[in-house]
């Protein structure tokens, strides 16, 4: 009897198929229920938001796409005719697109900035994606050969016709100012942050004064000084390139902010790390490079990217010294009488906002990805 029983003992070796969650919790209805309508308060918020969207979206979509003018060669296309409403004037953006991208860069030479932009974005993707082969070599190329080649291609010389920086404009200037600022301000910021924590009084004072002076002055003042006051104090006839002045101003300014961000990271490193590095016999630069900075920089990624994004948007301020970045080129064209209609200003500004948003959002997403990837042993 008992034998038979043991023979029929059932030991389950695999798991039961999991049951689908109840319909009210799974899929889209479940998500909606959980995230939008989980409590009376949430229900109220969700409903009012839906109402807001229903109120705002249709006219916006209508203005942006349905009533918009897509083709045309002058203002006639975007003028309201016999009472009908006219939406966004995309024909304006279309006609001026080359100018918004390259400024007054001569048309037959525009392959040069185009090539630079393509190489830059390909190179950036190569460096940014960890799976890529030859990544370390790519980084070195981007930091050494690329800037030299870029300068040669954009400015000219050695067989290429020279295109003066006063003809550069649009997205090209935005990218040149932002990328130079980003690339120059990070090392400058690191040096200043280390300098401010240095035990050597001279280095410490120089760093503190530099940071506090540059951080205490608005960027607009820095640019204005560089463009209006500097020429008065220089001997007549000596003229720095305007773009160069802006690049130096922006790099130093951002460097000062970067220094404080990075100093925050340095202060978060426990003293044991410094002592551990010293007990291994590492010198100052070695311990900084191998132990301290990798940890400190990782902590302040959000702060660094914050500075980069704000720098990217601040590039528009170069407008006040007569350089035309993306926003400047767009605004300058509002004065073109051939296109002057009520809708070009909002259309141009929305276009500018969209381009800026794409760049800033990309930076933001990449920084989140880096944070997750580098988040070893500190996950909370």
């Amino acid at each position, binding site marked *: 009897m008992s034998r038979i029983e043991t023979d029929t003992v059932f030991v389950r070796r695999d798991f039961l198929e999991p049951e689908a969650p109840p319909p009210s919790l799974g899929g889209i209805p479940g998500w909606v229920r959980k995230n939008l309508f989980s409590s009376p308060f949430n229900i109220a918020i969700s409903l009012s938001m839906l109402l807001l969207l229903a109120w705002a979206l249709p006219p916006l979509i209508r203005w942006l796409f349905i009533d918009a003018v897509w083709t045309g060669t002058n203002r006639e296309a975007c003028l309201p005719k016999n009472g009908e409403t006219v939406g966004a004037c995309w024909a304006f953006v279309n006609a001026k697109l080359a100018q918004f991208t390259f400024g*007054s860069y001569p048309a037959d030479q525009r392959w040069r900035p185009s090539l630079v932009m393509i190489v830059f974005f390909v190179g950036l993707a190569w460096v940014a994606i960890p799976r890529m082969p030859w990544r370390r070599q790519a980084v070195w190329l981007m930091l050494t050969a690329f800037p030299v080649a870029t300068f040669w291609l954009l400015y000219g010389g050695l067989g290429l016709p020279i295109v003066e920086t006063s003809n550069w404009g649009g997205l090209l200037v935005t990218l040149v100012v932002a990328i130079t600022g980003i690339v120059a301000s990070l090392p400058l910021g690191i040096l200043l942050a280390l300098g401010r924590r240095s035990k050597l009084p001279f280095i410490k004072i120089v760093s503190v004064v530099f940071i506090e002076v540059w951080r205490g002055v608005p960027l607009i003042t820095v640019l204005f000084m560089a463009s209006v006051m500097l020429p*008065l*104090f220089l001997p007549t006839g000596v*003229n720095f390139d305007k773009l160069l002045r802006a690049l130096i101003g922006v790099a130093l300014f951002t460097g000062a902010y970067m220094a404080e961000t990075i100093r925050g990271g340095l202060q978060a490193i426990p003293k044991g790390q410094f002592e551990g590095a010293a007990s291994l016999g590492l010198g100052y630069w070695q311990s900084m490079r191998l132990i301290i900075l990798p940890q400190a920089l990782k902590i302040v990624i959000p702060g660094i990217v914050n500075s980069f994004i704000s720098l990217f948007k601040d590039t528009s301020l170069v*407008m006040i010294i*007569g350089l035309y970045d993306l926003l400047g080129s767009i605004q300058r064209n509002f004065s*073109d*009488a*051939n296109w002057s209609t*009520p809708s070009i200003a909002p259309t141009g500004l929305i276009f500018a906002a969209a381009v800026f948003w794409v760049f800033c959002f990309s930076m933001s997403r990449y920084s989140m990805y880096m944070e997750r990837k580098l988040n070893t042993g500190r996950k909370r």
Partner: protein
Amino acid sequence: MRSNTLKTLLLGAAFVGAGAVAASAGTLDEVKAKGFVQCGVNGAGLAGFGAPDDAGNWTGLDVDACRAVAAAVFGDPSKVKFTGLSAKERFTALQSKEIDMLARNSTNTMSRDTQLGITFTGTNYYDGQGFMVKKALGVSSAKDLNGASVCVQSGTTTELNLADYFKSNGMTFNAVVFEKQEEADAAYDAGRCDAYTTDASGLYSIRLKMTNPDDSIVLPEIISKEPLGPAVRQGDDQWESIVRWTHYAMLIAEEFGVTQANVDEMKKSENPEVQRLLGVGEGVDFGTPIGLNKDWAYNVIKGVGNYGESFERNVGEGSPLKIARGLNALWSKGGLQYAPPIR
């Protein structure tokens, strides 16, 4: 006190700039050596005066003034480079030799002409404050605006001129004041005021941005003097003469019917005025004394046309602005544009 110190510093710097200019002189030689005229124009853009076209090239009445000087010096109107300047930067840029001439819709006033180390070389556009009203109002003169509400930008001389004008004509008005020009534009467009006042050239470009541009008219009265013209550094008489006479040459060409299209034919003209203008005939050479070739004015007309052509193309009937000649007509047609004779 602090601002006084700053002012002194700035003035000092300006004088250093001006002094250095007077000492070295010879803008023409420098321009010839570098091969182009560096010209300051309106950086933010002003419709009809200095604005980019679709290809990004500068166009406008002020831009033509620069191109004309380049044509006079080099025989080629394209040998000019432009520097976009803000209202604050413009005079400093001239003093510090960043630019060779300034053509940025700048009003000629006594203090600017005498105290800044610069000289205005003439008036390429007689501007002045005017009024724009809706056609539906049925008003044809500013004198009919008694009791009207007027949109105006705050903190400008425009606001003061407006009050003066109504007071001196024994009329009342209701000012609707806005901080920014865009706000004032929108308010006028939305019908919040009967009239809009600012410089007349501005009224025409603002009118283009209205929902229905044809519903508004600019009234004929001009209530203030705003003579706009090119400027050069003080102390370089030769360069000043070149810029001044380039404008005169364009006026004289219009007066005698010399246009961009017929300038080659006109070289055969028997009219001695035209011959002297174009440098035709034995011993007729007015260019060499100012450091140019004898066909300098021919090059100007060939390059950019006469003043009337430039006006029509940039701000007149040939442009969307459609500004009437008004004060800017030739003296012989009831306007103020008057050039001394070449002889």
